[in-house]
């Protein structure tokens, strides 16, 4: 007998498979009172040149700046001037209004698909604020706030959503799969996770060239399970790439809660520990905490101190997309129960507490945002909505497969034109 006696486990219990299940399903009344929300200001802020090890306690904590009364407290307070905060608030409001209108546009049959980021507005908007204008983002489909914040025209976003004549991607991409080089916003992919190692590669290139621009990669909690997450983490640490890797943990991946991506056992920020990378876990509904964390990681990356993994803890307040009805798999009111609150309300409260904002100004802001979005929509719709597309410029669909059009594609173009006429 070469091994231990199998009989030795005569009394071993039967093995069982654990399948993670979210605490609440439709019909249940969610109760998050047992969720420990660390107080704002409680976490230490290591120096940006610190060894990764010093950040490890932060991967299991929650960097929070805004307290319950809307005051900014603790070492992570980025100490922003009111104008900067007002700009962030404005951008967040625009994003929310934009999402609402485009969702409605999809329901009205003006396009095929839409995805909101409701409840997650602070993450992209405050990140944009904290980074340099020419740093490069490799986003997912829930960082529309980056574009808004960087001043990308709303009309152009809508033209993309409508796949219309104003869409500079020529109607080739699904709605919300934006791309804009000018605004440092890399083409969104339909394939989850692929952008993560791409961000690392861009940062490696910047380092190879002795540039000073850094990159930021984005991923959802669910998509961290893809192999590309691991590639990105590995390459980023091996080459000490000047990159920030963000996990937007909104706790849901379509119908699957974050436990299916491993959240029952460790935070997503904790993944950093295993690679010896700096890591932070941040209240994603706290715009100032987001700003501070991204600022910290940028400084770190820009001074050759290496990559940082940041988990933004938040909650996907609405359905996954226009194709999804979340009441099929979670309680209807769960978003409202979620204890970290609404990012817009929290930043507004902060500005009010600072004496830099009031209800009147906020109402005016919302009204103005609404008007701005409506005006943009009107402009965009002048250039067409999806149902009117795809009949003109048929030849354009045969361009850009390659720099030149090869014979087979040219033949097919001619045939397609014949079909369009015939």
């Amino acid at each position, binding site marked *: 007998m070469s091994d231990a006696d199998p009989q030795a486990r005569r009394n071993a219990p039967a093995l069982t498979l654990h399948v993670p299940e979210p605490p609440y399903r439709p019909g249940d009344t969610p109760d998050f009172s047992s969720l420990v929300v660390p107080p704002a200001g409680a976490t230490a802020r290591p120096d940006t040149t610190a060894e990764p090890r010093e950040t490890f306690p932060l991967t299991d904590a929650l960097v929070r700046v805004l307290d319950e009364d809307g005051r900014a407290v603790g070492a992570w307070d980025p100490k922003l001037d009111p104008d900067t905060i007002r700009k962030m608030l404005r951008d967040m409001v625009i994003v929310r209004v934009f999402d609402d209108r485009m969702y409605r546009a999809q329901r009205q049959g003006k396009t095929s698909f839409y995805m909101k980021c409701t409840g997650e507005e602070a993450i992209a908007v405050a990140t944009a604020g904290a980074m340099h204008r020419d740093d490069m983002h490799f986003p997912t489909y829930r960082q529309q706030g980056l574009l808004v914040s960087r001043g990308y025209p709303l009309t152009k976003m809508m033209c993309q959503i409508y796949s219309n004549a104003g869409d500079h991607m020529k109607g*080739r991409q699904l709605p919300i799969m934006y791309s804009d080089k000018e605004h440092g916003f890399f083409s969104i992919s339909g394939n989850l996770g692929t952008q993560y190692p791409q961000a690392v590669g861009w940062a490696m290139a910047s380092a190879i060239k002795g540039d000073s621009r850094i990159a930021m990669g984005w991923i959802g909690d669910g998509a961290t*399970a893809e192999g590309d997450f691991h590639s990105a983490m590995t390459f980023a640490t091996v080459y000490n790439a000047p990159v920030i890797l963000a996990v937007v943990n909104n706790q849901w991946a379509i119908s699957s809660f974050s436990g299916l991506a491993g959240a029952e056992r460790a935070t997503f920020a904790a993944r950093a520990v295993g690679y010896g990378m700096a890591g932070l876990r941040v209240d994603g509904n706290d715009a100032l905490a987001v700003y501070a964390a991204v600022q910290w990681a940028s400084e770190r990356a820009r001074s050759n101190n290496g990559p940082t993994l940041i988990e933004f803890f938040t909650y996907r307040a609405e359905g996954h997309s226009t194709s999804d009805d979340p009441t099929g798999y979670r309680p209807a009111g769960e978003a409202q129960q979620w204890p970290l609150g609404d990012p817009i309300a929290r930043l507004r409260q902060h500005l009010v507490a600072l004496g830099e904002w009031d209800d009147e100004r906020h109402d005016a802001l919302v009204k103005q945002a609404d008007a701005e979005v409506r005006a943009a929509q009107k402009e965009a719709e002048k250039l067409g909505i999806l149902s009117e597309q795809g009949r003109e410029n048929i030849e354009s669909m045969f361009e850009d497969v390659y720099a030149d059009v090869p014979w087979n594609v040219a033949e097919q173009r001619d045939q397609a034109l014949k079909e369009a006429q015939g």
Partner: protein
Amino acid sequence: MATMNMIQAINSAHKVTMARDPDVVVFGEDVGYFGGVFRATEGLQREFGITRCFDAPISEGGIVGTAVGMAAYGLKPVVEIQFADYIYPGYDQIVSEVARMRYRTAAEWTMPMVIRTPYGGGIFGGQTHSQSPEALFTHVAGLKVVIPSNPYDAKGLLIAAIEDPDPVVFFEPKRIYNGPFDGHHDRPVTPWAKRAEAEVPDDHYTVPLGQARVVREGAELTVLTYGTMVHVAAAAAEENGVDAEIIDLRTLVPLDIATIEASVKKTGRCLVVVEATRTSGFASELVTLVQERCFYHLEAPVERVTGWDTPYPHAYEWAYFPGPKRMKFALEKVMAD
């Protein structure tokens, strides 16, 4: 006997096999409590328990990789890849492991598993919800490739696939999940309920792998097709008054070559109709086989109707999709020559 659409038929195939064989386990992204984004696995978790049907992390490589281990243990995993466009992260496990396991171990280990995945266009899904990547699997020895075109076949073929001793990649034409589609996107969709193929037995039955179905006998022309295009081709032949023999291949590998040969030798003309990108698609293999085996019976070159050699562009759905116009021109060409 019930009336089922394709989703219901596929759901029923799961239920029938899970009830008969406790070794069948079903997993994939969102397939558990929720029942899958297309609802193909609806109710399975409730009926068979959470360890027989469960959600998986978003990792197609992990889904197929763990399925390999389960099959090695002796289970029969039936996994769902949410869209065929997302199968590539699992491609290494499929090509290097699943496909070659029986061979490399001289049948010591086998891989009786099914990889189900919705494929094809016609739903404004853009580049990443419209692909037809079947040729990337037909080239890999050791895999079987199956594509049903109606509810009856979907259930019978899926049961046969689950019971098959070899791994099967099972592509489901998502455009016709809820009703057949003849290519005329401007007409309302007829529900499956109005079609004979929607009469589906509640119980166990199989449609054997490797057998094509002659959808319509004809004398003038043989049409080789599968999936959504069966309906588009049949409608086009009728509209254009061609007495076509329409063959729904159903299984691409192993192919029912006898049926193909007999038909082409009878008609002397052949048109191959697929949705996929043209170059190096499975259509090329079909054309090649026909010209190798029926050359002296051919009165005209075998023609292909295919998607274009471009990604699938969102707004140009109907300029990309091989619809009635493309069919018409091809029918004219192959009949004129």
